[in-house]
């Protein structure tokens, strides 16, 4: 097991990072043109995500964190800079990448199981083998009894659990998550935060996680990249070297409060 308490995976600039990192974002810029003006969604953003590391992008609305995630997913091209994923230029349809969004994106005409195996269909793979894996993951997220029911019969939290199962079903090395818990009520959100932490400690994936919730970022991450608006830019990084496994008691600890302040200070810049 990797020693997550030591900050060995600390601040690495893209220039000095070798092949160790899984995601490399270097001097990336993205511009949106409206009718009246052009807006720099992000300008000269650089950061890396190392192998097996859980990194959160934290910042206020409009700091371009979702834009960055879309660019890493390869569905939005950057206007400047380069993005590499596992050594190759970011592009969609990578077998090694899994996605999760703020809305669960479950199709109402498919039952939960059929929704979870959708990535296999999109990759043009055999879904029979996928079903096995899907059922296993539904068990992991606590939805083993829900395989045959339809998404509209699930609560918001259960929908995101199903979405989490779909994220993991293809066994991706890299997880890209865009505010997956933002639409949930606080109690459900906190339960799922620790559940994702538990799953991450078990599977040790490389993850890029977008959120505006500092507490959530601290519960989940190994490292937090803090962004600011106008233009969207990186203002700093915080190594979240809090003990693992992450447990609910962590929130009340002094070191958690200390880290929380560290991120807050960076957000105020």
């Amino acid at each position, binding site marked *: 097991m990797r020693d997550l308490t030591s900050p060995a995976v600390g601040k690495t600039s893209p220039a000095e990072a070798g092949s160790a990192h899984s995601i490399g974002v270097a001097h990336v810029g993205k511009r949106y043109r409206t009718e009246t003006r052009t807006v720099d969604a992000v300008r000269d953003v650089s950061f890396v995500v190392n192998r097996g590391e859980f990194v959160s992008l934290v910042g206020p609305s409009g700091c371009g964190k979702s834009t960055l995630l*879309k660019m890493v997913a390869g*569905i939005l091209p950057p206007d400047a800079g380069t993005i590499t994923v596992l050594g190759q230029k970011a592009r969609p349809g990578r077998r090694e990448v899994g996605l999760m969004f703020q809305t669960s994106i479950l199709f109402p005409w498919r039952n939960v199981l059929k929704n979870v195996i959708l990535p296999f269909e*999109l990759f043009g793979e055999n879904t029979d083998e996928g079903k096995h894996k899907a059922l296993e993951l539904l068990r992991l997220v606590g939805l083993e009894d829900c395989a045959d029911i339809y998404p509209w019969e699930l609560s918001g939290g259960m929908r995101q659990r199903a979405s989490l199962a779909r994220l993991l079903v293809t066994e991706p090395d890299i997880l890209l998550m865009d505010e997956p818990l933002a639409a949930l009520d606080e109690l459900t959100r906190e339960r799922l935060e620790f559940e994702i932490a538990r799953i991450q400690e078990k599977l040790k994936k490389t993850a890029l996680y977008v959120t505006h919730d500092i507490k959530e970022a601290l519960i989940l991450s190994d490292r937090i990249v803090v962004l600011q608006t106008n233009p969207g830019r990186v203002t700093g990084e915080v190594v979240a070297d809090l003990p693992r496994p992450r447990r609910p008691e962590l929130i009340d600890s002094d070191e958690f409060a200390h880290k929380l302040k560290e991120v807050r200070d960076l957000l105020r810049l």
Partner: protein
Amino acid sequence: MRTTSSTPIEFETEPNGRQLEGGDAAYAATRGGRYGKFIWPVVVFVLVVGAGETLTRAEVFNRFILPRPSAIASAMVELAGESFFWDAVRVTVLETTAGWALGSIVGFILGAAIASSTVLRQGLYPYVVLFQGLPKVALAPVFVVWFGFGISSKIVMAAAICFFPLLVNTISGLDSVNADAKSFMEAYGASKRHVFMKLSLPEALTSAFAGLKTGMSFALVGAIVGEFVGAQEGMGSLIATFNFGLQVDSAFAVLVYLTLVGLILYLAIEWLEQKIIFWRGHGVA
């Protein structure tokens, strides 16, 4: 944080909500209770038919203008025993459903084409809208010239009148495809065909059914108008024949049956929709 303040409020609102429901029920009870929705329509029916019967018996209305309800009823019974009547029903239902099917297929394909191609949208859609400006029933005489006095001219008439609602609903269904779901699929490398088959089509089908229902009512109009313009068979032609022979009670009897035919066809699609679009009311989320 938020939970501590919001939880007690939720507890307060719940009983209030129930009280409101109870209040609604009490209100409804004073106006006929739970059987009101069955009783009141019957009351209205009895009053209107009774008034009609009284007025026609008192010869306020000439029986050639407004036949007695009892005469219409006996004409209905009489017609039900005639094979020529059931032949007419069969012809009209065939014209309507065949025209509806034809118009719907054309409307759906045209709608899908317009929605998925910018060239077709810009080149074709203005003319489709222009065509919609034309009252389609005005084409009935032309269709008789083109397709003859048989059922084919009525099928074409029904199709021409019912394709537009489906076309519009197909376009709007395909246009409003969930953008997040689309980019999610694209991130997983979905082809255009994947997105269409697995996302756009089922979503479009949901809104297409609204067009299919309106289209069926339209198709019946088309079939009847087609028959009025020139036909030897069908319910519309039967109405024209009875009117011509001053058998107004029989003409009204056919009208009542025609209403039932329209209703049954509508309910049939409604049933089909519930079977096919079993997720109705729930979108991608």
